[in-house]
């Protein structure tokens, strides 16, 4: 969702404090020992996030709070196709607000195993809890991570790096 952030240049320091999900946000990539199902979260430059299970076999995808804010009131979410195998960067869905449409891209190579049907009924959930991967949250899809996908993880940002990235995006 880089383009939106580029366009709307107002600084938004609020995003720095916006990460509500607790847990090991600064935990290193290879934290295999972590026990929480939320053990590993990564972000893309395009403002998607992925939560990975401790064994890196499954994950949950969504869009970041920063992106949700930039989009404004979400009125429609086009959900990914279940069962589809995708590569990192593939468009798997879209989020629409009055002012713009944003593609949702696969952060890593993966297979879509589930979608958040709640968003069809209540697209505004994306504005309320965009980074919540639990029931009732604004997550978008559940995925099975492929071998290729594990490699893709290295290109992604950890929460701290992402926070710095969005802060910088907001400034210019």
């Amino acid at each position, binding site marked *: *969702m*880089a*383009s*939106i952030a*580029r*366009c*709307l*240049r*107002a600084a938004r320091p609020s995003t720095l404090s916006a990460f509500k999900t607790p847990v090991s946000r600064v935990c290193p990539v290879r934290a295999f020992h972590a026990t929480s199902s939320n053990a590993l979260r990564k972000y*893309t430059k*395009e*403002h*998607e996030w992925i939560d990975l299970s401790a064994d890196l076999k499954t994950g949950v995808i969504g869009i970041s709070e920063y992106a949700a804010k930039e989009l*404004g*009131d979400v*009125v*429609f979410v*086009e959900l990914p196709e279940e069962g589809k195998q995708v*590569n990192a*960067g*593939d*468009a798997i869905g*879209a989020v*629409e*607000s*009055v*002012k*713009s*449409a*944003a*593609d*949702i*891209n696969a952060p890593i190579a993966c297979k879509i195993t589930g979608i958040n049907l709640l968003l069809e009924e209540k697209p505004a959930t994306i504005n309320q809890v965009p980074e919540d991967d639990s029931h009732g949250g604004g997550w978008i899809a559940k995925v099975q991570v492929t071998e290729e996908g594990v490699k893709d993880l290295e290109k992604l940002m950890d929460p701290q790096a992402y926070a710095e990235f969005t802060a910088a995006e907001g400034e210019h």
Partner: protein
Amino acid sequence: MRTARTSAARSAIQTARRIPTTAHTATSSCTILLLSRRLASTPLLRPAFHPLTTLQPTLTAVRHGSSSTSSGTPLAKTPLYDLHLAHSAKMVPFGGFHMPVQYPSLSVSASHVFTREHASIFDVSHMVQRIFSGPGAAAFLERVTPSGVAALGVHKSTLSCLMGTDGKGGIVDDTIITRLPDEEFYVVTNAACRDKDDGYFEGEMQKWNGEKGEGMEVRQEQLDGWGLVALQGPEAVEVLGRCLDQGTGVDLKKVLFGQSVYARVKMQGMEVSSELLISRGGYTGEDGFEISIPPEETVAVTEALLAAGGKERVQLAGLGARDSLRLEAGMCLYGHDLDESTTPVEAGLGWIIPKERRTADSGYYGAGVLAGQLVLRSKGGTGVRRRRVGLVVEGAPAREGAEIVSRPEEGGEPVKLGTVTSGCPSPTLGKNIAMGYVKDGFHKAGTEVDVVVRGRVRKAVVTKMPFVPTKYWKGDV
């Protein structure tokens, strides 16, 4: 009603003319982006595109403007730039200016709804305000537009189109022309077309003055650096009424849609503004006004309007709400719904051409083409091959570039009918609205078609515009 611009206002114009024209960036790069985005809507190509740049990210830099970095020319500021920053506006490059796209007090949809229920103030100072004068002004404008400019009454306005000089009937820009006293015409054109329009007028005036000589010459001045502020919404009239200087003696009830008046506005303290040209109309479909203000008074007049209404009645609104409001009102955005390959008849703007200018010998550029198009083929004319229509789309909002296709009988193949040129979810209706061009014959309200959004077919119905009824002030009925 006054008959001449005050000397103060006049000298302000003179001063303004000496201010060097600030940077106005071209939009060609933007066109390329739009084209690439159109290609990007082909499913096969999509993964190759950068996320979110495949989209139409709204009314922002990517869609409309060119930023300082891409053009190398610094962006200009309207007289309200500091006021926008003071209200923490999100600023984006648009038409060569730093413009507010939204303010943190209201989301785009909330601002949209607020405008329909109360009133909003839009800074539209980026638009180009021109004054044409001289004995040949009316005749000159009748060469470059199909409008009945000579017959236009004083303080009356008309929507019009600048016509391509190649005679093919294409639209160079859309514009509002207002006749002022003393054979002067106030012409407002689009910011994004500034350079192109400047060149167009320069060339055409040179040609005109060369041909016609003394006694029929035309002159142009630009109100550079002036403010243009739109006050729009059902409460606009009350808010403006509170601000008008009593000594002006203006009764807003008598200023109907499409008319204008000179009036003074009470600013802070005991200060009163110079006489401002206030036109009733706008780009939202609501009752409202557009106020042309000298540079040094723009902030004070805007603040007076904000103060007169209070937060419950008046809010600042940005380009985001402006776009969805105008779309609900069925109005075109040049560069999207209109361009040089589109004629006013195809665009559904045939009504701007008065009866007496509907013949091929009417003397404006493209008259031959338009005269033919205005008459259906069945009645001996050429008709048009495509027409601008409104669409209500099911499911996903269809945005610019989405293909419109026929809905085939079972077993049949869909045929491409045209393309969406603007679209968004309508905050007022809670439906997805769009406008676009379809093949003649598929333009009738109620016609069922399909629209392809991100590779998926969505049902759509051709719908009469405006989508939301307009509420123009046409007097006590």
